[in-house]
């Protein structure tokens, strides 16, 4: 049985001024798949991710979410964003709120979840990411890895259908990368559909179902991790992989 298409991108284009950042991007993400975007900085990976969450609005092309074409003019993007979680490189936790408050803010405000229920669900999520002893502390007291795990819990609290990760470990000290990747791996094993921009090739190979190599705003190569890493077809992919591995 063919899996459901969660995200579908057709001929997506995006420019910032004169800079053509995304050129005719086509991409399909099936349910429960982990798609890893790799490529040099400036290749458009992050912009593509941000377009999927409508933090950037595409210039043209089509974006489908669960088969439904999403357009700025016909859809309430605030509702769409609830369905697509996003984890940022710099965590972007709310510093004036405790860890638990960070997690329950959006469910209460946006989904009108009763506070008691939001707290219960929030605690479950924080337990899941291994932060059951940190409910009532402020983010400034946490390590980078802990912050990122709070950010993941905060995103999950909205029950998203798809999770986007924008270089989630790039701002972390090397010894803290593992804990965040493990949390993401567990999430993937539970069947979460994920699109991940990362430079962690070990993660891409182990957890990724599909790997996308981007260069200059284009998708150069797309395939299973072993195809991309062990036998890249394109010269550019080979060069990129040899430069980082």
């Amino acid at each position: 049985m063919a899996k459901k298409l969660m995200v579908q991108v057709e001929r997506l284009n995006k420019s910032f001024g004169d800079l053509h950042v995304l050129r005719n991007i086509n991409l399909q993400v099936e349910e429960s798949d982990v798609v890893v975007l790799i490529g040099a900085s400036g290749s458009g990976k992050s912009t593509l991710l941000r377009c999927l969450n409508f933090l950037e609005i595409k210039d043209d092309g089509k974006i489908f979410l669960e088969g439904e074409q999403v357009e700025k003019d016909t859809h309430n993007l605030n509702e769409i964003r609830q369905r697509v979680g996003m984890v940022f490189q710099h965590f972007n936790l709310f510093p004036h709120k405790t860890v638990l408050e960070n997690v329950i803010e959006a469910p209460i405000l946006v989904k009108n979840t009763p506070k008691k229920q939001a707290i219960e669900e929030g605690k479950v999520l924080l337990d899941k990411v291994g932060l059951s002893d940190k409910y009532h502390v402020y983010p400034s007291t946490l390590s980078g890895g802990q912050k990122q795990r709070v950010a993941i819990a905060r995103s999950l609290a909205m029950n998203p259908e798809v999770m986007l990760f924008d270089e989630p470990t790039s701002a972390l000290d090397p010894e803290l990368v593992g804990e965040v990747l493990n949390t993401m791996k567990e999430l993937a094993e539970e069947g979460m559909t994920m699109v991940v921009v990362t430079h962690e090739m070990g993660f891409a190979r182990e957890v990724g179902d599909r790997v996308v190599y981007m260069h200059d705003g284009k998708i150069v190569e797309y395939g299973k991790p072993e195809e991309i890493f062990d036998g890249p077809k394109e010269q550019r992919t080979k060069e990129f992989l040899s430069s980082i591995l």
Partner: protein
Amino acid sequence: MSHFFDVFMESYPIFLEGLKITLYLSAASLVMAFVIGLFFAILKISSIKPLQWIADAYIWLIRGTPLIVQIFVLYYGITEIILIDAFWAGAIGLAIHSGAYIAEIIRGSIQSIAKGQMEAGRSLGMTKLQTMRRIILPQAFRRAIPSLGNQFIIGIKDSSLVSFIGAQELFGVSSSLGSNSFDFLTFYSIAAIYYLVIVLVLSVVVNRIEKRLAKSD
């Protein structure tokens, strides 16, 4: 010195009346000024150009003219249309004046909040307004507290100018007492002491608030 002390003790019931008016005047004007300041700060950061122009024009007008001129123009302007007492004319004048500075303070602190905060809010499905209200403004106000406290202190001292349209606040009281006795130096010095005490108390309060809020940063 003992003369000064005697006069201080004799005059304090009258000065307390003036102090009361100074405090009411300051409180009323600063509350209004805060609302005005927040309003124009939001106009300035809005993406709609004409709204920005309105805010720019207001700030330019207020910063470019002396407060005493603003108070007089407002007082004589308003009383052309409706009869309003010196207290409220003064309070509104002070509010419009401080509002321009507060607008700039709040705008600056809003813009100093990292862009990622708005993005994080939006990515969770919050609207721009919800993110502004729940995420950006609380952080911006914390950051603005030292400057706002400073502006409030200036506002309290500026309230002395309202005596020129007839309000019997601290400075007005000391002027009257001075003219009656020709002992200007003593009465103005007494007024200075009252102002110092008000400002001292406010500084301590602002410091406390700052310290208490610092714990989460």
